[in-house]
């Protein structure tokens, strides 16, 4: 697992982590609630790493890199809505890439729910993922279907059955021989991830599973403590966001997280 704490730009290593202003060069409507924003500065990154994205006048939020020069955003609140208001040519500023990335396997199974597909797309494109289980609420909310179909064995589930198997993406797991994969990488809603962890733990391969967590983050660099998880005290922003299943199994994962004030809220 590589932790890149220095920003590499066009081959030049910059230790400067001051917010870098970037211009939005493309906006793609992926689904009715999800858009990808590309910008004019590519980052060298490991899939799973994220940027702190500053939406001027609104807030700064963590976003996985869905490629070297893009993020893929689901509109859920103020800051994401702020991003949705931007047009090509507008400017935002970013810090990062931060955090670790997925540990690279050779025969990987990827499992994504909703916008959780964002950090897994670059992994699939890097040709490491054999099987990709993709889930969403409904057909129109499925992300990156064509791209993923080209480079992986893509299997789909939708809550309403509008495409693929009906049900949560985890139902697809039951038909797979999990032992055939050297790594299981997961990103999506935490309850879905916890279900996956339960299943891999059942067959004793939780140490070969990795989960990209989404926790409330203020600093993104491991100083403030707002993203720490129980009982290890590990910082999701710095020691994660990708954490291994055996580490998560006896943790708050899937049970509670913390809000901006640090209070616990049940998942």
């Amino acid at each position, binding site marked *: 697992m590589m932790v890149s704490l220095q920003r590499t730009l066009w081959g030049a290593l910059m230790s400067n982590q001051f917010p*870098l*202003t970037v211009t939005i060069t493309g906006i793609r409507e992926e689904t009715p609630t999800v858009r990808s924003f590309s910008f004019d500065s590519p980052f060298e990154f490991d899939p799973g790493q994220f940027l702190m994205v500053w939406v001027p006048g609104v807030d700064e*939020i963590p976003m996985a890199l869905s490629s070297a020069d893009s993020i893929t955003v689901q509109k859920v609140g103020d800051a994401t809505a702020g991003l949705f208001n931007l047009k090509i040519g507008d400017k935002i500023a970013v810090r990062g890439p931060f955090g670790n990335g997925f540990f690279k396997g050779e025969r990987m199974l990827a499992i994504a729910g909703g916008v959780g597909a964002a950090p897994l797309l670059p992994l699939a494109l890097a040709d490491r993922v054999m099987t990709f289980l993709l889930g969403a609420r409904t057909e129109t909310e499925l992300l990156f279907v064509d791209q993923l179909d080209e480079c992986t064995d893509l299997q789909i589930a939708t809550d309403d059955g509008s495409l693929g198997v009906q049900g949560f993406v985890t139902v697809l797991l039951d038909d797979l021989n999990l032992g055939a994969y050297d790594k299981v990488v997961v990103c999506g809603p935490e309850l879905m991830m916890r279900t996956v962890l339960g299943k891999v733990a059942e067959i004793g391969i939780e140490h070969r599973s990795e989960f990209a967590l989404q926790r409330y983050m203020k600093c993104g*660099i*491991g100083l403030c403590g707002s993203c*720490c998880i129980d009982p290890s005290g590990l910082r999701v922003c710095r020691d994660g966001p990708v954490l291994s299943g055996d580490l998560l199994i006896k943790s708050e994962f899937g049970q509670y997280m913390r809000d901006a004030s640090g209070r616990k809220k049940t998942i």
Partner: protein
Amino acid sequence: MVTIRPGPVNAGGIQIANHLLLAAGVLGTTGASLTRMLSYGAGAVVTKSIGPLPKDGHVGPCLAVLDDGFLNAMGLPNPSKEFVEELSVLKGKPVIASIYGGSPEEFAMVAEWFKGSVAGIELNLSCPHAEGYGSAIGSDPSLVEACTRAVTKLGMPTWVKLTPNVTDITEIGKAAEKGGADALVAINTVKAMRISTGLGRPVLGNRSGGLSGKAIFPISVRCVYELYETCKIPIIGCGGISSADNAIEIMMAGAVAVEIGSAVYSDVRIFETIAKTLYSDDGIPSKDIVGCAHE
């Protein structure tokens, strides 16, 4: 390099395992995180500042990384009273609760919550970016004295953390001393701002914030030195400390122990790292170092 003989330290009524403490607000939001810092060798840990009501803090960006320090305006996010529960995993450990309030009464109320579950209280009278709290109170000597007295009355060891953003920090130190403080902590962050020239706006959601890290070390040393000349109670040095030599230096200025915040960024095991070069069995007793630059 000068080294110190290892051994427990009594700083302002609190017994700590070594001279290196975790500063308030850095990895201090959960019991688990504080436990981790203790396991990495912190002599004691100070919690995130806790106030009378839960607070989400300022909108982001809350922090900017500079070449030689950090700028932050978290805005005192905290779970308020719920936090007491976090400390249950830390029973008997050297934990100091940092607290804030808008009045002597609020300070006393919050301090009271922690009675029996912490080794001491640190009053945050110094955060430069929380309206009505922190340095807003901490730059007025009479308010400092009143807030300090309200808490010292409760009988717990009480430290007062000072802001450097005042004309004369010794006035504030003396006020805390009068209020019965057991120790002074100097310093909190220095009021500062950076602007993104790309976006044409301040890099923090709150516009201004507090500067921490290496950049402020010369200011911390000066403040500790001035306080040592004017106050009798012990001083805990804080601000920009990132090496054993820095620790020795601020102790020579007058600090009996140090708090470390920003340096955790480059090395989460900074306490162990510093202890390795700070201590040796044939080192000198720390009392021979504290304040020796005044002779």
